[in-house]
């Protein structure tokens, strides 16, 4: 899947595994050098002090290597000498060498040497060495066969380590070694027995294959892309440890290694062959719900709980899609009973704390992050901003809550009330926030003059919208050179002076989540041809360029002919690295939007 001679390498993506905290990425500045880190703290790879250079040793000397990685393992090769890494979901990874040794040398990404290490010592029982890396946790190095040496230098003047190097060396007779490296916070975690290495690799493949079964088959011709996308999601799945009481899907493994609440619902949308898992993904974030207000808080990582912030109420859109696609039988009466109050509290949170103040359910946002679109020009006039996207999400959420009420035993009488509220909000959205060409945001009652793609997001309401609105949205989104580019829908019209492809997210780039929302919406509205055309453009480009979050569609700005800003890599921005968010959007488009 990834490798020196493969279509994709590990510069933009990191090698990882479901349930493992370890990742391995190729160094952007020293291509050909793989680096090992972990995502306990959520600190990005470009500033983390906890990064190990991976060196392949031949007769004790580092040698240049090539590599190949798939869902089973990562292999390094240098003139026939070989290293192989296999990650596990049991808080350790294994490595073996044939004719080669392995050197792990700690080198901070931000030029601070080996300062992440607070100590490294041999255990009294001779089983191996333990290293303490402060917030990054501990590592326990064990040689299963072969030899092992540790070199450290402590700089007394700087009061930190200047060298931390662990070498695993092959046995002089067999020419092979095998090792395990455990990672944990305080005490080594139970890991069972060390299985045969080849079995471990094959078990990893089997685990990925099992995970893949929760997705439907992609449209013909997209099998390879779908596999990559599934792999990205699988490799970003956390284990239930630390702040994660249940597995969630991290946004990225090596950059913004946090789990975003609304992204769990994005992931759910693609899991059409396992509705129970889809439902679990949607519900999991409610374990952090504020019991007082109903707010579902924002990002969390292994080390940091979800406490502050919030993201859009995406759950309604996700469930509406699932109901339309696979029905609602996956929600039992007891589940409806359990989740109705939580979702109701969430919906009421929005209308209580984000009310536009009109005495109804119209919502206003107080920051861009609440919309999920951090730099959308919808918000160029400031706050509080009445956002049509937030209202569209709210309408769908209310309808979903009504359906849950109906399926429950205790809340059936609430059904009509929610449907009435949803209908009323829909009528308000259409009558007051549609200007004939697009939906609009308002600040202080005044329309925001924006050419953001987000203006069309309420198409997610599908056939709830009048035909003339549906037709107009479809017309706008398929007109070449405005939002539609050769590679999908740009987040800001190409005719907008605001459009930028530099350090930006949704102010010009072609971003996966918006393309997914809009194509799903067009499909729901009966515009299958348009939806499919756009989805194919985006997915074809993802197949060429990889599963990154946003792409610059051109080298110049169409509005003024100027050369487009370029992001200076590597920086932890959405446009540069592979992400599970883009992967799940690709999967939804491949398996459902694009006709089979």
């Amino acid at each position, binding site marked *: 899947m990834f490798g020196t001679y493969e279509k994709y390498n590990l510069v933009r993506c990191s090698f990882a595994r479901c349930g493992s905290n370890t990742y391995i990425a190729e160094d952007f500045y020293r291509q050909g050098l793989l680096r090992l880190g972990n995502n306990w703290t959520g600190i990005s790879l470009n500033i983390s002090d906890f990064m190990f250079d991976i060196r392949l040793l031949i007769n004790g000397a580092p040698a240049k290597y090539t590599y190949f990685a798939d869902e089973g393992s990562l292999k390094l090769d240098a003139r026939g000498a070989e290293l192989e890494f296999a990650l596990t979901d049991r808080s350790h990874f294994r490595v073996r060498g044939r004719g080669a040794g392995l050197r792990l040398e700690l080198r901070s990404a931000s030029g601070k040497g080996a300062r992440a290490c607070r100590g490294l*010592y041999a255990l*009294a029982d001779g089983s191996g060495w333990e290293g*303490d890396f402060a917030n990054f946790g501990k590592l326990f190095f064990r040689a299963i066969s072969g030899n092992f040496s540790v070199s450290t230098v402590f700089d*007394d003047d700087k009061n930190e380590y200047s060298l931390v190097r662990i070498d695993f060396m092959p046995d002089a007779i067999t020419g092979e070694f095998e090792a395990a490296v455990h990672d944990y916070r305080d005490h080594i975690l139970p890991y069972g027995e060390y299985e045969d290495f080849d079995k471990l690799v094959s078990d990893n493949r089997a685990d990925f294959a099992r995970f893949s079964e929760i997705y439907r088959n992609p449209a013909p011709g997209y099998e390879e892309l779908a596999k990559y996308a599934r792999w990205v999601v699988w490799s970003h799945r956390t284990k239930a440890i630390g702040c994660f009481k249940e597995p969630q899907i991290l946004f990225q493994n090596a950059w913004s290694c946090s789990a975003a609440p609304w992204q769990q619902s994005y992931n759910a949308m693609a899991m059409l062959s396992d509705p129970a898992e889809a439902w679990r993904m949607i519900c999991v974030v409610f374990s952090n719900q*504020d019991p007082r207000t109903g*707010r579902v808080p924002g990002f969390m990582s292994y080390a940091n709980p979800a406490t502050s*912030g919030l993201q859009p109420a995406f759950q309604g859109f996700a469930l509406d899609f699932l109901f339309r696609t696979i029905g609602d039988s996956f929600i039992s009466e007891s589940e409806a009973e359990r989740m109705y109050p939580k979702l109701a509290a969430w919906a009421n*949170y929005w209308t209580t704390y984000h009310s536009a103040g009109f005495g109804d359910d119209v919502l206003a946002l*107080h920051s861009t992050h609440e919309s999920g679109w951090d730099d959308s020009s919808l918000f160029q006039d400031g706050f509080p901003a009445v956002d049509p996207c937030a209202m569209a999400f709210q309408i769908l959420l209310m309808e979903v809550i009504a359906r849950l009420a109906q399926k429950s035993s205790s809340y059936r009488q609430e059904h009509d009330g929610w449907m009435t509220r949803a209908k009323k909000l829909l009528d308000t959205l259409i009558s007051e926030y549609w200007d004939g060409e697009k939906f609009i945001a308002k600040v202080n009652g005044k329309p925001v003059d924006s050419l953001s793609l987000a203006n069309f997001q309420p198409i997610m309401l599908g056939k709830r919208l009048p035909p003339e609105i549906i037709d107009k949205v479809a017309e706008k989104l398929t007109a070449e050179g405005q939002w539609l580019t050769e590679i999908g829908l740009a987040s800001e019209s190409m005719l907008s002076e605001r459009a930028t492809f530099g350090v930006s997210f949704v*102010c010009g780039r072609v971003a996966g989540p918006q393309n997914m929302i809009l194509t799903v919406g067009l499909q729901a509205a009966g515009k299958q041809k348009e939806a499919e055309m756009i989805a194919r453009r985006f997915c074809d480009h993802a197949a060429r360029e990889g599963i990154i979050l946003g792409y610059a569609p051109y080298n110049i700005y169409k509005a003024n002919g100027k050369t487009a800003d370029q992001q200076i890599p590597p920086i932890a921005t959405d446009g540069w690295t592979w992400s599970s968010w883009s992967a799940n959007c690709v999967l939804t488009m491949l398996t459902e939007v694009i006709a089979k």
Partner: protein
Amino acid sequence: MDIKPVMSLFGFGHRRTRHIIIDREGELWLKLAPAPQGGFLPMGATPLPGTLRVEPLEDGKVEPFSYSASESLLKLVTDSGKTAEFTVDGDARALRIKGNAPIRLNGVSSASFVTTSKTETGVLISAGTTRYFIAAKKGSIVFDDTYILNKFRSVTPVLDVFPDEGEFELCAFDIAEDMPLPAITNTFEECASENGAEFKAFVDSLVDIPSEYGDVKERIAYPIWLCHRDLGRGAEVIVTNKYDSVMSGSRLMSIASMAFKDAKTAIGMLLAYPVELPPIAGIAAARLIEENMLCDSRGEIYKVYAALEAAASKCVKERTADREGLCFNAYRFESGLKRSPEFFKVGEPVITPDLNAYHVILCEVLGKLANMEYDMGAGKKWEARSKVLMSKVIAELWDGDDFIGKNAYTGDASKPDELLSLMPVILGKRLPREIILKLAAKINPQVTDSAMGLLLAGGLFDAGEEDAAKSIARTALEEVRDNGIGCPFHGASLLALAHKVLM
């Protein structure tokens, strides 16, 4: 009490809130104490000393000023004689500001991802975990909340406040998300008065020291009082500096516990964190026993026992080569020092005299606690272990002149560490007289000038060298009188020592 000497180190604030006003090169900055936040965006990151700089204005220009500060009130006076006063409303979690000088609260440059909005009722400045809602009880506010889309933030917050009929009054709330604004029930003067009374009561809750050092006790008490951090659910810890640090931990809280009279407070501090190395919790628990502060009916004996037992078990299972002998430190930070101990020059892991001295006391205390719980079998076991370790500490780590460290595997002996080699003095009269005298000769006010260092003086006292201990305590108290205190834990340790040896 005049807190101006510590305004650039700790700042002006209140135990129960996150508000801090810090002095940086004569400028006053408003800041909220750090709090953990999730996510990956560096919300609120800024290299500036605080969120908003206080700038009194005259004819639209910033006017020079001077200020005075006590634990309850900060008063700023401009060159033209106008004033602005600051106090904290603990109930409302607000910084109250009033005066007759027009004031600018200036963000200077924008923190990362800051968003602001102006409403009819006030101004919200939100930057990560810093969320101010600033409302005028009297006077008017001028504020620009333009959002800069391509920079992911609002313009730099600059808030101008103008008096109305010669006076303004502001409330700067530390407001959590989705919380309604607390009601303001006290006047500014009532808040200041209450804060003064609260601080005085806090001073009285600390252990008694000779009355001639009452002023010193207050100076020490202020950072301890200020640097409390609310963990929620009624739990509080003390941090090294509320302004910019959340550092705390078992070792530090054990030391702090010894400065408090109230048993419940002291026990709560001792148990605030799982006991880690170095297990100073044993010394803190010994103090609780000596002063009859453990009451069986509240299950406290068991709680303390369980916490200490976990630490002792870790020492035995994970920090001995054979589960029988002396313990080693695997990592430098386990010594409790920021610097690397001299012992580690022979390579880790290192059997150290300080860790084993703590462990002797830990085991002895566990024995006493077990006996108090009528578990005589466990009591005997711990007492026996304590005695065995005591013998081994002397036999294996005393080289005739100093306590040294040894590599746990090779036995290579290190040179002595200037502080940690003296730590076995905490064993008091358990040590032979000749060892005590040799240690005592090296224990002086310079060596003891830290939170952990002062434990040495307590040990001297227990070893019978009472005059030396008293001298160190008095010297340290005089030092604080002259130069202030730089760390709340150092202060707590000094109060505990002074109480132990001077009362």
